């Protein structure tokens, strides 16, 4: 592509932290291409930071037709004021049809401030985007947004205002393969003048994020609920997790009962996990827990009640008492695999 119409694009805000592009930004470029095909529009990318020029070609390889940037050492620390000022100017000049942000902490901080400046609609933390005709007009963006801890999905449109803005949850759209050597047709320095008043914050210290346990990202999770009578029996959860080289977890009631620490809580008010194997031990399968684990690749449930909702969710169900079943599972899983090869 030699020349593009730079206007009415699908624009993606590219988040850069400490020299790296945030993965959600590249996913959105891939998805942006799909949307742009339907609209017959270009894909544009905006990147701001203290050292961003090294990334401009990468953005082309991931699908951007136009790349707009501003590089300034003072943009090293994220601050809403200068970032919104620059983005606002980019939107004013390029009049994008759609503007997407990763639903990261930064994206969910920056997007609403920009939406308020432009007086446009914004939907948060979307898990689906599609284009469809609306009230007899051309295609507009239909945004799927989970609410109430993921129990409800709302379909949202912003028919009257442009750009149509969304922040999109990471991992919703697959990251397409880069096309090595694909160059953006336009690369432009936005060159928005910034003044002292825009830099109203000073970074005193940058610290690593507080280390969490290995539950997020664990391949195997063994979780326990109120099927355990006391903390001593709950130890079985830890022992099975240990044998399987997995991580222990618990439901909200198990945390409230003091069986397991809060940082290992899975569910609506705790963590969402996506292990390849999840053991739900003595867990009934209430909605609040479910939303935190139902995306596991394979689920094994143990419960004394054959009617427990967890059996509508699990791949394997075992009716029985965790106190007698888990020790037997521990024995079976500890045995060397037989007749393998």
């Amino acid at each position, binding site marked *: 592509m030699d020349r593009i119409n730079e206007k009415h694009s699908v624009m993606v805000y590219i988040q850069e*932290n*400490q020299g790296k592009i945030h993965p959600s930004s590249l996913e959105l470029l891939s998805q942006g291409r799909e949307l742009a095909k339907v609209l017959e529009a270009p894909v544009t990318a905006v990147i701001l930071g203290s050292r961003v020029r090294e990334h401009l070609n990468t953005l082309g390889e991931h699908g951007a037709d136009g790349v707009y940037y501003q590089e300034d050492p003072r943009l090293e620390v*994220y601050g*809403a*004021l200068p970032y*919104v000022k620059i983005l606002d100017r980019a939107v004013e000049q390029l009049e994008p049809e759609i503007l997407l942000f990763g639903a*990261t*902490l930064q994206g*969910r*901080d920056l997007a*609403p*401030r920009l*939406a*308020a*400046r432009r*007086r446009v*609609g*914004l*939907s*948060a*933390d979307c898990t689906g985007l599609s284009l469809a005709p609306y009230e007899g007009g051309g295609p507009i963006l239909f945004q799927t947004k989970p*609410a*109430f*801890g993921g*129990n*409800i*999905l*709302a*379909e*949202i*449109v*912003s028919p009257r*205002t442009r750009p149509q803005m969304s922040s999109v949850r990471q991992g919703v759209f697959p990251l397409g393969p880069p096309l090595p050597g694909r160059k953006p047709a336009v690369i432009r320095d936005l060159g928005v003048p910034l003044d002292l008043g825009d830099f109203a*914050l*000073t*970074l*005193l210290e*940058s*610290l690593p*994020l507080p280390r969490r346990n290995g539950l997020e990202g664990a391949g*195997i999770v063994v979780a326990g609920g109120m099927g355990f009578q006391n903390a001593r029996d709950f130890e079985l959860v830890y022992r099975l997790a240990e044998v399987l080289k997995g991580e222990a977890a618990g439901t*909200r009631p198990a945390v409230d009962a003091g069986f397991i620490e809060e940082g290992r809580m899975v569910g*609506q008010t705790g963590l969402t996990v996506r292990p390849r*194997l999840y053991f739900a031990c003595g867990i009934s399968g209430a*909605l*609040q827990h*479910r*939303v935190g684990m*139902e995306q596991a690749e*394979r689920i*094994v449930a143990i419960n004394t009640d054959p009617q427990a909702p967890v*059996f*509508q969710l*699990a*791949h*394997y169900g*075992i*009716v*029985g008492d965790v106190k007698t079943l888990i020790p*037997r599972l521990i024995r079976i899983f500890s045995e060397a695999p037989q007749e393998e090869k």
Partner: protein
Amino acid sequence: MSFHLIVLVKQVPDTSGPGFTAALNQDGTINRKILPAVINREDLYALEGALEIKDRFPGVSVTLLSMGPPSALAALKEGLCRGADRGILVTGQALAGSDTLATSYVLYCALKRLEPFDLVFCGLKSSDGDTAQVGPELAERLGINHLASVSEIEDGAAGFPRRLTLRRTQDTREERIEAALPLLLSFNDRGREVRPVKARRALGLRKAEGLPGGGEGPLWIWEPRDIGADEALCGAAGSPTRVISSRPAAGVSRKALMIGETDEALAAMAGELRRDRLLG
């Protein structure tokens, strides 16, 4: 010197309890009537942040501001019992259906009437809408700086009322930031303990009703006209986003393969998991 801190609170249905499944309607709406109504969790951390400043510095007053139905007065009463000085509810039919942009407009109009103020505190997001948008949108309308996802005010708010040192959670790191006032701060869920309700105050407020305008009592009720809000910018009419449908998340529904309790059956399941390379 007197200083004025504003805390935004939202009353939300308590969806953490066991009653939640029963309150979920087929059409994807929530039957709020059968769920207890509580102050949004992160708003309590925001209130705590404000009250700590009030504890340390003389002449600080804390005003709670909420937009919602008349029943949200209960949330304001709770906030007063935790130590705030005054609670204001902005309510009215014209506000129904407000999205975050319209909400930020209404709160902006109310804050204009509450000027002067030094700091605005709020929760990062509400547990029901889960957008995290109202804080930054309001800061933009007020023309003041904001910091989102604050977990703590450090050093006992030593620089108050000129500046604060704050701990902010970002995507790849934690930051200690010094920022000049005025500011809007949204607090994340990493907050610490919040102070309990004072029983004596609760008793005194039991029968308190919101008074219109700016009366003597600690609870006020404002309607859009009291704050000069243009109704065309409020409620559904003033909301650029439109919810066109809402449904319960499909969720997974499958029938578990029931495994017998025998050692052979359990071993067969273990073998299958191993074969499918699901084990470590």
